[in-house]
């Protein structure tokens, strides 16, 4: 087999190998065609940006008050090691859903919230954008993910996830949080200001 073609595509050739390749390309039309075909195939294989990457909700730099930054540092320090103990990986996806949906009112972002809670029997989200009513999320098959699509107005919103009706938890992927009035924490989501 002509692994040299793949090595060429993957930038694994020495200068001598490259010279040998060029010489062979010149004299072997079949080898030339195969090399070109594999290059075209790899161009597609490596294509980026054809599908929109989801937006990740992270507070804009510099927008976090100093006192909150200190709190966040203290919060995340113990998470670095024993985060697995939490047995949850929570994610927020803010995807702009353009297709298959009527256009949202101006100033509103169609958003998708996703959370990984394989042990939960039910998961809900409550926040400023739901009037702090718990809105049930949908299980994404048997994957352990729960998701919901909401039209959320642009701006800053507090929210929290609620598992099995009582276990409230903030989203660890969003570094901005604040303590609520009940000793827990809310995530602070900035809609329309994502990276």
């Amino acid at each position, binding site marked *: 087999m002509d692994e040299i073609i793949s090595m060429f*595509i993957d930038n694994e050739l020495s200068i001598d190998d490259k010279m040998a390749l060029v010489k062979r390309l010149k004299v072997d039309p079949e080898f030339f065609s195969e090399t070109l075909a594999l290059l075209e195939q790899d161009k597609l294989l490596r294509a980026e940006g054809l599908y929109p990457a989801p937006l990740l909700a992270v507070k804009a730099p510099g927008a976090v008050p100093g006192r909150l930054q200190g709190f966040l540092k203290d919060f995340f320090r113990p998470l670095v090691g024993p985060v697995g103990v939490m047995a949850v990986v929570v994610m927020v996806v803010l995807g702009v859903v353009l297709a298959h949906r009527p256009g949202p009112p101006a100033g509103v972002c169609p958003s998708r919230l996703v959370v990984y809670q394989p042990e939960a029997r039910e998961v809900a989200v409550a926040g400023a954008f739901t009037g702090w009513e718990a809105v049930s999320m949908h299980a994404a*098959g048997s994957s352990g993910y729960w998701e919901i699509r909401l039209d959320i107005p642009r701006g800053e919103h507090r929210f929290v996830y609620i598992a099995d009706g009582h276990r409230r938890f903030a989203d660890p992927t969003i570094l901005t949080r604040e303590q609520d009035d009940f000793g827990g924490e809310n995530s602070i989501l900035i809609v329309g200001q994502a990276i």
Partner: protein
Amino acid sequence: MIVFADFYRDHRDRLLAYLLRMTGDYELSCDLMQESFTRCLERYGCKGLKPSLLFTVARNAVYDHGRHCQVRHRSGRKLCQVPGNPEEHHLLREEYQRVLTAMQQLEPDEKDLLSLAATSIYSYREIAQQVGISEANVKVKVHRARMKLKKLLEEGKHHG
């Protein structure tokens, strides 16, 4: 957070492309992408962020998900259902989708090796260390996977 934001912007498209090659499923790829960035941030912090670590975490996330959900064997979920303007890059997307579909027909180890090679993040030596085979074996298997993909695409054209 500036560091993380830059890191995310610099690598999100490449990581999503890698995950699409591995899963052929847009929504799953988006979920795994979020999970990978999250895990990376939690484990290594802003100062420890490296592309090679990110892709290793993403690869593990794919396999974790496969173990839990048997993603390769599930049915009923169409590949690459994506939002967006259907006219935009229509032909290119069609071709790309054909490649992603054909990728899912490769053997798991072939798909794994070719997906890693196509990230342009790892050398063959690094891929060999990651998957636990020799560098010479990577060289042979990557090329074999490429040729098999080409054959699958050609067969698809004839049948299509």
